């Protein structure tokens, strides 16, 4: 491992001071489950490593009126078992419970999953379906950006690697929070992942979904996201439009699944995995629909 200087600040303000004082390549470490491997294999060669685990002010899950706010340093273990998340953002709890293994979930953080920028980040796919917004802080103050804009097209991403300074985040910035609207009374969300095995599986594809029904059980608002079938997880609005204003009959769902499959073909048509993924995405999405229908009928 390369030699570097190490800091373990107690607050965000301290981090910004370190940013100012240190001129070399800086790397933030929280869970370490990705960045440790990158440093070990010399894919990332920092001069300065800053520990985020010691900063309590980015470790929280809180309800704030109609929003749920999550500190970037919150672990997957906390998110997958937190009552607020389970009740009001089930897709996220389900996604976090499928990350890596027990050990990885105990270390890994939601902020890490987002800035790593991997196409198959499990929590990211769920967050896209929840229409999440990121709060990014720098010495100049805070700014907000939607998750989708954060991963604007054309940005580089590698699946087994991580870009700590993804173009979406500046060198003097820290991702501090992700927040989204709490589920409405008739709104339900779900997430499913397809991997080669039950644990420690890199996602082959993921589907996140959040659906709000009106009193007639018609879809009032739908958000569907796909992961691991493109550079980053993304929304599939044309598929959402198919179910909009309709009851979730088998026929409507199948129409929606076919559109999802078409979107997969359009995005990864040239890849060797496309013939498999265009079919399997339908099965995975069908399960997500089933979970949402089950929740809504309780």
């Amino acid at each position, binding site marked *: *491992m*390369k*030699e*570097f*200087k*190490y800091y*373990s600040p107690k607050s965000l303000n301290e981090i910004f001071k370190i940013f100012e004082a240190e001129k070399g390549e800086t790397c933030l*470490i929280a*869970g*370490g*489950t990705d960045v*440790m*491997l990158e*440093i*070990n294999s010399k894919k990332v060669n920092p001069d300065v*490593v800053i*520990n985020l*685990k*010691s900063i309590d002010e980015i470790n929280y899950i809180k309800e704030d009126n109609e929003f749920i706010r999550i500190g970037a340093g919150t672990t997957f*273990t906390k998110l997958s078992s937190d009552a607020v998340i389970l009740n009001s953002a089930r897709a996220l709890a389900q996604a976090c419970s499928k990350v*890596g*293994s*027990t*050990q*990885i979930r*105990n*270390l890994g953080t939601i902020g890490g999953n987002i800035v790593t920028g991997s196409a198959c980040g499990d929590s990211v796919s769920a967050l896209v379906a929840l229409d999440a917004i990121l709060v990014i802080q720098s010495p100049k103050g805070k700014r907000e950006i939607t998750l989708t804009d954060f991963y604007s097209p054309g940005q580089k991403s590698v699946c087994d690697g991580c870009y700590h300074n993804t173009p979406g985040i500046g060198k003097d910035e820290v991702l501090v929070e992700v927040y989204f609207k709490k589920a409405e009374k008739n709104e339900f969300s779900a997430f499913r992942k397809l991997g080669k095995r*039950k*644990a*420690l599986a890199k996602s082959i594809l993921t589907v996140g979904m959040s659906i709000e029904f009106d009193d007639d059980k018609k879809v009032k608002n739908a958000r569907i996201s796909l992961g691991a079938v493109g550079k980053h997880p993304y929304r599939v609005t044309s598929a959402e439009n198919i179910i909009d204003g309709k009851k979730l009959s088998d026929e409507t769902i199948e129409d929606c699944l076919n559109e999802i499959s078409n979107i997969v073909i359009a995005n990864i048509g040239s890849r060797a995995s496309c013939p498999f993924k265009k079919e399997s995405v339908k099965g995975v999405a069908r399960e997500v629909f089933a979970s949402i229908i089950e929740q809504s009928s309780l």
Partner: protein
Amino acid sequence: MEKVKISFKLNGENVTVETPPNKRLLDLLREDFELTSVKEGCGEGECGACTVILNNEAVTSCTVLAPQVDNCEVVTVEGLGKDGELDKLQEKFIEEGAVQCGYCTPGMLLSAKALLEKNPHPSRDEIKTAIEGNLCRCTGYKKIVDAIEASIEE
């Protein structure tokens, strides 16, 4: 390289050590404290042989930077059991034939220990989830799950 002075609780005792910051927790425990029960199998958090309990949670010590455990609490297999007596998990691993080559055993024990501390009456599925990050290439897992199940206190 500038060394970092850290203090933490290791197997119940307060320890202080100066370490180069570019050291993994795995190497700190094996080299500086000679706790060779902590094994390296893959070096990338996939196999679980290097599992330790960090602040009551099982983690892979190959993906933790040594200085990150400053002010934390770390438990290795050397910290299981009391007064020369085996922990019940250790006893049951022996009795149920859950030990073969033994390389995954310390990590398995610690994943199981972290589970039982949090959830004293886990279901078989919860046991499987707790050890999902620990690979065993010999047993086929059944006897390990049996042993953990057998050590649940009535």
